[in-house]
């Protein structure tokens, strides 16, 4: 008990300094281990069997054909891109004339994950990029399946990401096709490894069912993420304790705790 009392008297500034120093001290170890794992994976493929090589060749052919099909529509895509750029420039002129706040723009920064720290009380991981890539606390992190989390701590060459499943992770969101804001909060990872969250403050008229689940997406209201990135699916909504709103469980992408690479949404105004 005496030890816990002593611990309570240590100034929090000292704790932060020590914790930050230890994080910086650990970072090269995690990076080294992650690079060794990548190298092992690379060298491991040299011993692939003929059967594996044939299978990979087949997959490569399929991807090449898909690429060929997509490149055949290149001309129409370029026209669409040109049209969108025109619309965007018109929007900027309108925003300036009305004196509205500028829409935040993001640059994608891709980074490998070095180590995951997924305990009962905390879900997060470390990545290989930090202040040297102009990353800052609070920036959003995404992957192919949607939102991953936010940057919680940024070191010189490494950063810590607080995952969307973390119980202290909260963002404003909305259901796809409905602009009313709702609150999303992380709810940990179940015993079988499935990531989960909770959605609060859902208006009474919104209904979700097993046959017609609702897709929860991000909104730009919070400033961290752009509009429309998928968060998860809701299959059931029930009345809150106060009866004014509904709440329900959000089923997130199962790949969340198996990721190897993520994209950080760096805000363009954070660049020097």
């Amino acid at each position, binding site marked *: 008990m005496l*030890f*816990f009392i*002593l*611990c309570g008297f*240590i100034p929090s500034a000292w*704790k932060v300094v*020590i*914790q930050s120093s*230890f*994080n910086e001290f*650990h970072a090269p*170890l995690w990076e080294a*281990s992650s690079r060794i794992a990548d190298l092992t994976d690379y060298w491991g493929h040299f011993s692939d069997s003929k059967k594996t090589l044939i299978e990979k060749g087949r997959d490569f052919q399929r991807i090449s054909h898909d690429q060929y099909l997509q490149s055949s529509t290149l001309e129409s895509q370029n026209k669409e891109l040109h049209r969108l750029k025109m619309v965007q420039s018109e929007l900027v002129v309108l925003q300036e004339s009305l004196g509205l706040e500028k829409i935040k723009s993001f640059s994608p920064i891709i980074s490998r994950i070095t*180590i*995951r*720290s*997924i*305990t*009962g*009380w*905390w879900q*997060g*991981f470390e990545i290989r990029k930090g202040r040297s890539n102009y990353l800052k606390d609070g920036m959003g992190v995404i992957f192919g399946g949607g939102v991953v989390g936010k940057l919680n701590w940024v070191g010189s060459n490494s950063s810590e990401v607080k995952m969307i499943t*973390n*119980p*202290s992770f909260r963002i404003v969101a909305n259901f796809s096709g409905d602009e009313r804001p709702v609150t999303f909060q992380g709810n*940990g*990872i*179940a*015993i*079988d*490894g*499935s990531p989960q969250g909770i959605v609060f403050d859902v208006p009474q008229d919104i209904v979700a069912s097993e046959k017609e689940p609702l897709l929860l997406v991000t909104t730009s209201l919070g400033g961290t993420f752009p509009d429309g990135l998928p968060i998860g699916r809701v299959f059931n909504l029930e009345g809150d304790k106060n009866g004014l709103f509904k709440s329900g469980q959000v089923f997130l992408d199962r790949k969340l*705790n*198996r990721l190897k690479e993520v994209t950080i949404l760096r805000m363009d105004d954070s660049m020097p």
Partner: protein
Amino acid sequence: MKPNQSFLILLLLGFTFTILLALLNSAITRIGIFIYIPSILLFPMVVHLDRLRGSFVIFSLGIIMDTQLKMPLGFNSFSLMFFFLIAKDWFHSNEKDNASRPTFFVVSANAAMFTIWFIICSIKPQYFGSWELKTFLWNLLISSLCLILISKWFFDISLILLSSKRSMGEKMKA
């Protein structure tokens, strides 16, 4: 062997173990398993180090674990030091021939630390994060089983390292 040499070897062994455990946890958390076994460090330190050196090693490794596991700074270090001091008195005042007793002590200390942390999380979920009872019990069971399986092995490794260092010293003297 000089006490400072044992101190350094055990500090390095403990540090390597915490790093390897973090890497293992990083790999297995994808299937929903988390292993928390800080008390495995207790027994080699109790047997091979005196109070001062042992406390220092335990405290340093505890801080490393606090940082790795995102716990409030000092939880593992102070709890481990508390159990280290109890174990030090207990080890020197009890019969040493019963091999299952140290394992029992280490598993009990681990379960106590895990439970205290769960209670703290339940009381202040807004600061430390909420944690479901089902997940806690599952993690506790897995961690205790791992501890039973590897605590003896970890102690043997410390013995091998210390005895090989001792024999190297004797050879050099000869």
